[in-house]
């Protein structure tokens, strides 16, 4: 059983790290701010979600697991709002 949990954690966290790396490469390589924003928000939200999912079985009790989920939800909320605001500022600057 513990082997299965370990494998689950390793697979999820590794997948999460992959998306983080992909998002970071996008941030560095993409030509303009809007596409960089696109790479960063989507890939990183998914990456953090997978890392959180992988760590869930490691939480010792329900409140800890709930906190891990809340971290992901809060980052989604603030990240999405911040991306909207940056995007809007870019559009205003371009006109």
């Amino acid at each position: 059983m513990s082997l299965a949990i370990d494998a689950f954690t390793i697979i999820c966290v590794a997948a999460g790290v992959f998306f983080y790396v992909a998002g970071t490469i996008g941030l560095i390589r993409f030509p303009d701010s809007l596409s960089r924003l696109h790479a960063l928000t989507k890939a990183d939200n998914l990456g953090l979600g997978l890392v959180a999912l992988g760590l869930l079985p490691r939480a010792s009790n329900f409140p800890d697991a709930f906190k891990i989920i809340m971290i992901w939800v809060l980052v989604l909320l603030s990240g999405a709002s911040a991306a909207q605001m940056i995007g809007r500022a870019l559009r205003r600057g371009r006109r």
Partner: protein
Amino acid sequence: MNVQPFLDISLAALVIGVALFTIIAKDEFSAVVAYVAYGIFLAIVWVRLYAPDVALTEAAVGGGVTGVLLVMAGKRLDVSATMVVAKKPSVAFSAFVAACSILLAGSLAAVILSLPDAAPSLAPQAAAAAQGPGAGLGNPITAVLMSYRSFDTMLEKVVLILAVVGVWSVGADEAWGAAPAPFGPATPSDALLFLAKTLPPIGGLIGVHIFWTGADEPGGAFQGGALLAAMWMVAMMARLADPPPINSRWLRLALISGPAVFLAIGVAGAMLAGHFFAYPSALAKPLILFIETFMLLSIAVALPMLVAGPAARKGVR
């Protein structure tokens, strides 16, 4: 193979790199952004030093609230439009300063590494304060802040109020008593409005939670207060609320409530429990929580007022 040292060294390289960037960045805005990132990375260094309480404070105050302060200052100074026309220091002088800085850093590192090995420690006294009569605090930091060195913490709150008075007093004379300039434009974006309506209930709950668990686990009035302050500032940025006038009665009462309650209980301790800032043993923990509640309020009000700046006439940003 142990990967921990490699992670430590990468973290150190990251912190030093970002710190270097805040110095060499071309424009002020990049420097400010790098400084916020530096605050977050520094918080991870604190975790590695077994200091989760300090890490929470550094992330909330050093990274978060300071970031808001600096970005607002950048906006008010209009950093992109008005560049300073100062002479660049000569290359020889720069090189001389660089050499001196490297020498200073090197000697500091040498001094720290050659500290005596049986390091002096006040940990036993702090642990005694945590386990002391009636206290039963599981978090030794809170025990130090509220019991062992309570006088320092009280004075630190007074410093915070003096800082608010200092910020208010550099404002224009004719604006005295009015509200500080609003945090954002009159029409905030929909995304910000959505965030300001969704986040504060959750963030406020987390702030109170961090304050409440501070008795036994990492957290406390400073960290919780900083979170509550941040939530108020999010609401002010979206113009759901505006900074209150600086002569409003409730604002001033909230500001002084923390040190006032602290001092009152300290004086009461001098009469009832034998010496200044002694807690009667049966009531120690409830009293500490009572003081901390008002400290939480003071901090949550003082930090946004420090960010908001002095009073401004209407229409001035």
